[in-house]
């Protein structure tokens, strides 16, 4: 068990290091440097700028410095913003993104498995069709389209739901729904097939023949077992949520990390691109690790086989 944990942690660190390295060298392989274009500046100013950002040193040295700073939790300065460092932007943007992401995750976690379970219980009946239609829509309609459709048909007609912006709970409703639909649909589909499989198991028949009420059989025996596969894909879904938020934040004008990321791409603010990418990667990989570890604790069968090795 602890050996497995150690192995997973080491793998995660290697992955993170790979991402940091790829990101660093990609961003430094771009021809030209960020200050050339900024009008005509005196040579001395230009050289001072290069020196300030350490761009006058050899690349390998810059890489080592960047790694050291990262270990201290310092993502560096933004090349375009004069007043804020990348850390400031992350500190400002991340809570907003995290709030939105958690709200979306909550919606998906409540309605996704519920829809899937309902579909399985009423296989090939109306609830099944309805929930599968929702699932198909959720998977085929990208979140940026869902977002615009929601603005067009909901925000424009319902006066208390704003088109965009941030600050109150009502601002979060539409973006969270748009963001949650894909994971929701995915979970519903997964839950339906795993629930169908569980319902055919012998222990369900045993429980029913013991005279346990139908709702108790479903809640205590079927759902608890059927929900396991969902936990295993939770990491991927959270990763989808995080990345999906780039687009959603752009549409709804939400001042989250995703908006900074998109902005940094459009401004070609390389240090900010690097910083946000690496920050996203850290969040994702830590979450994946946590999900994997949680899965071991939840599913006893995995613990046994891991220990047996």
């Amino acid at each position: 068990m602890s050996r497995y944990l150690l192995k997973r942690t080491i793998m995660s660190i290697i992955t993170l290091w790979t991402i940091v390295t790829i990101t660093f060298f990609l961003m430094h392989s771009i021809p030209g440097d960020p200050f050339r274009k900024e009008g005509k500046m005196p040579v001395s100013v230009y050289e001072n700028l290069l020196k300030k950002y350490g761009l006058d040193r050899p690349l390998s040295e810059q890489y080592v410095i960047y790694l050291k700073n990262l270990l201290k939790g310092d993502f560096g300065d933004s090349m375009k913003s004069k007043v804020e460092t990348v850390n400031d932007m992350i500190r400002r943007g991340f809570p907003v993104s995290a709030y939105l992401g958690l709200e979306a995750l909550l919606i998906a976690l409540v309605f996704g498995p519920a829809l899937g379970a309902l579909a399985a219980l009423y296989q090939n009946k109306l609830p099944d069709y309805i929930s599968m239609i929702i699932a198909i829509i959720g998977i085929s309609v990208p979140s940026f389209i869902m977002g615009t459709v929601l603005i067009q048909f909901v925000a424009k007609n319902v006066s208390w739901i704003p088109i965009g912006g941030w600050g109150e709970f009502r601002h979060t409703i539409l973006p969270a729904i748009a963001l949650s639909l894909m994971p929701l649909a995915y979970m519903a589909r997964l839950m339906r097939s795993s629930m169908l499989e569980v319902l055919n198991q012998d222990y369900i028949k045993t429980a029913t023949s013991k005279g346990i009420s139908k709702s108790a059989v479903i809640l205590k025996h079927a759902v608890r077992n059927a929900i396991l596969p969902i936990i295993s894909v939770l990491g991927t879904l959270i990763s989808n949520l995080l990345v999906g938020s780039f687009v959603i934040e752009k549409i709804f004008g939400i001042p989250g990390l995703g908006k900074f990321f998109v902005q940094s791409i459009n401004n070609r603010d390389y240090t900010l691109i690097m910083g946000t990418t690496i920050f996203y990667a850290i969040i994702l990989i830590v979450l994946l690790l946590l999900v994997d570890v949680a899965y071991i604790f939840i599913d006893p069968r995995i613990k046994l086989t891991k220990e047996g090795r």
Partner: protein
Amino acid sequence: MDNNLSSIKDLSPDLFQPALKEDRDSDRIRRPSIKYWPDVWRRLKQNRLAMVGLSIIIIMLFMSIFGPLFNKFSYYEQNYDLINNHPDTVHWFGTDELGRDLFTRVWFGARYSLIIGVLAATIDFIIGVIYGGLSGMATRRIDNIMMRIAEVVYSIPYLLIVILLSVAFSSEGAGTSMFVLILAMTLTDWVPMAILVRGQVLQLKESEYSLAAESLGASKGWILRKHIIPNTMGPILVNITLTIPRAIFAEATLGFLGLGFQAPRSSLGSLANDGLAGIAVGNAYQIIIPALFISLIMFAFNVLGDGLRDALDPRLRK
């Protein structure tokens, strides 16, 4: 007893008569045996949703090739007298803010989206089969190392790396080239295919027919190419049909973030991005039409992939 035959030589020829023709045919297999792929196709045909998906794909393919020929407008032609023209009998899907015909642009966009999806899936397929095949046939130690590498590659967030590469390899304002887009999409996405192929190889190389081929002196490479890979085509095909929409989705998202093709060329994603501005001024059709087509393509490939998976699943076979 008289009619009790005491020995074989008492049998006279007139006790026998020729067998009837029908009786001779009784143990012949009358129906043609159904081979693997026709059988899959037969079961796929029964899945109405998958057939809808297949029809949409065929129509989309046809229209993305010939659709722009259906009217006289080109995808780059600007007409400032007819900007933001709502759909009518001349411009079936309306025009954009530069007066370009959206019907033509949508089919051109669909063409690029489909090309990207198919190319990305093909490259994933090639890399995945080679990597997975090698890993599966290699010694346990090498297999282990190869799989760890694949795991690290796969935990790099897909869309993040796609965005990063598009930023790095496209000069400002020039848009992203097709080559970079495909490279970015296949960089991490070959891994599920490789893992799938490896799993199948590990399983199938223990099969009787692999053993038979081996005992007849076939080399490992021959067994892999001629026996194992053909038998893995089913799951591979399912994976391909699910890779295509993922690539199309990633490309659409890139286009939407302003990292797509250079204007006037466009994909469905960049068309949707261009149309976003139209919402505020009452030209919602400019985003809804491309959005509808993205969704249709995603829908079609997803249901086809699901249908194929069901058709190939031996547990559902009766």
